[in-house]
């Protein structure tokens, strides 16, 4: 079973040189720490920056330079700053090569729910609905099951949707899966995790073809 860092490391392996990437809050944010060598990536944050750098050194933080998680950040050489409409022009116009975000539920038809739990205080969808509706290449980074042990990979989402038929790839603590016609296709198993364990943790249809390789993290 992978921890949060391992999920981030596995997703980092998907990064290709020259990509522009938008990372959501939580596990996705960690991916920036594991960029493969010889791969140049520029990170976009939807509040209006391309070329985000690491957190600032103590006492060098600038209140006028934050990311979409409201954290203080820095810029790298070649960065650019723009308004919110231009930022979402990049997102909606599919100029972002990869979007990684978390989820509460994903359905086997690629629906995603990650913004609202009925009965609980609603905080809002922020940029998530634009991101999932627009991006051509989205990876969901999530635990396979929730805190109560219930599967997050479902036949049908039970929570209000963030987007419909938009998720194509999921990396969990147990597996890498593609959303294909018919269900979740198992691509890789986490080290030491069996296909049966994954099947058990997946409420939606799991498609297993041939021998499923173990994923390589490092």
């Amino acid at each position, binding site marked *: 079973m992978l921890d949060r860092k391992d999920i981030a490391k596995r997703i980092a392996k998907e990064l290709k040189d020259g990509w522009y990437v938008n990372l959501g809050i939580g596990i996705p944010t960690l991916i920036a720490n594991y960029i493969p060598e010889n791969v140049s990536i520029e990170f976009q944050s939807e509040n209006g920056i391309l070329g985000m750098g690491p957190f600032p050194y103590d006492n060098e*933080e*600038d209140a*006028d330079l934050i990311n979409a998680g409201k954290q203080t950040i820095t810029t790298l050489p070649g960065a650019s700053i723009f308004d919110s409409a231009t930022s979402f022009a990049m997102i*909606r116009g599919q100029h972002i090569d990869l979007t990684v975000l978390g989820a509460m539920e994903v359905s086997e038809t690629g629906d995603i729910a990650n913004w609202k739990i009925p009965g609980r205080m609603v905080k809002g969808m*922020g940029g998530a*609905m634009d991101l999932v509706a627009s991006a051509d290449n989205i990876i969901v980074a999530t635990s396979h099951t929730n805190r109560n042990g219930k599967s997050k990979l479902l036949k049908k989402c039970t929570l209000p949707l963030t987007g*419909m038929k938009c998720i194509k790839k999921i990396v969990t603590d147990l597996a890498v899966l593609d959303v294909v016609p018919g269900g979740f296709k198992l691509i890789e198993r986490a080290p030491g995790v069996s296909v049966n364990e994954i099947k058990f943790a997946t409420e939606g249809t799991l498609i297993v073809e041939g021998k499923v390789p173990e994923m390589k993290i490092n």
Partner: protein
Amino acid sequence: MNKVVKDAEEAIQDIKDNATLMVGGFGLCGIPENSITALVHSNIKGLICISNNAGVDDFGLGLLFQKKQIKKMIASYVGENEVFERLMLDSEIEVDLIPQGSLAERCRAGGAGIPAFYTPAGFGTEIQGGKSTKVFNGKPHILESALTADFALVKAWKGDSNGNLIYKGTARNFNPVMAMAGKITIAEVEELVEPGELDPNFIHTPGIFVQRIFHGKTYEKRIEQRTVRNK
């Protein structure tokens, strides 16, 4: 074309109860602190606020929620605010949540005379509601309408008396599109200069979109998530 007013009080003096306001900023970054303070000191009530966020308990728009001056909030994300949460649970405030990109584009559209446009964001979700839909290139879209406001309150780094504005860093965010969409746009700036001091080639918001401008006296610039690394 001198648009300079003395201070925030003078700038907001004709904002009436039940006015619709756009308020620039993302979280607490780039918010019009002085205009908000002036509103808090006024007794204006029943405001409809369009802003990406709702501030925090004791800063930003949160100050207006404490005094129950806002009756409706139109935003994309309203977390991190307990006062707001209580008002919402007690149904003392109406909330309209809009995907962030649609919010930004709807403001721009309002300023650009585009009454409606199609976007894929929110299709198949409760955001779609009764909105008209159409498929383009095999992908379903929903028709979103323009947003405008009686007043837009924006904050810039530098500005000239013509109303030309330059923002700093990610404090830019929603400010330029809201400046476009306000019937009366009130800009507060950290530095107010004479026409000719700002390079025409590097103006972020042309003065035509700004009706009033003033030098903001104080900026706290509170940081929500101070995140640093060690040397």
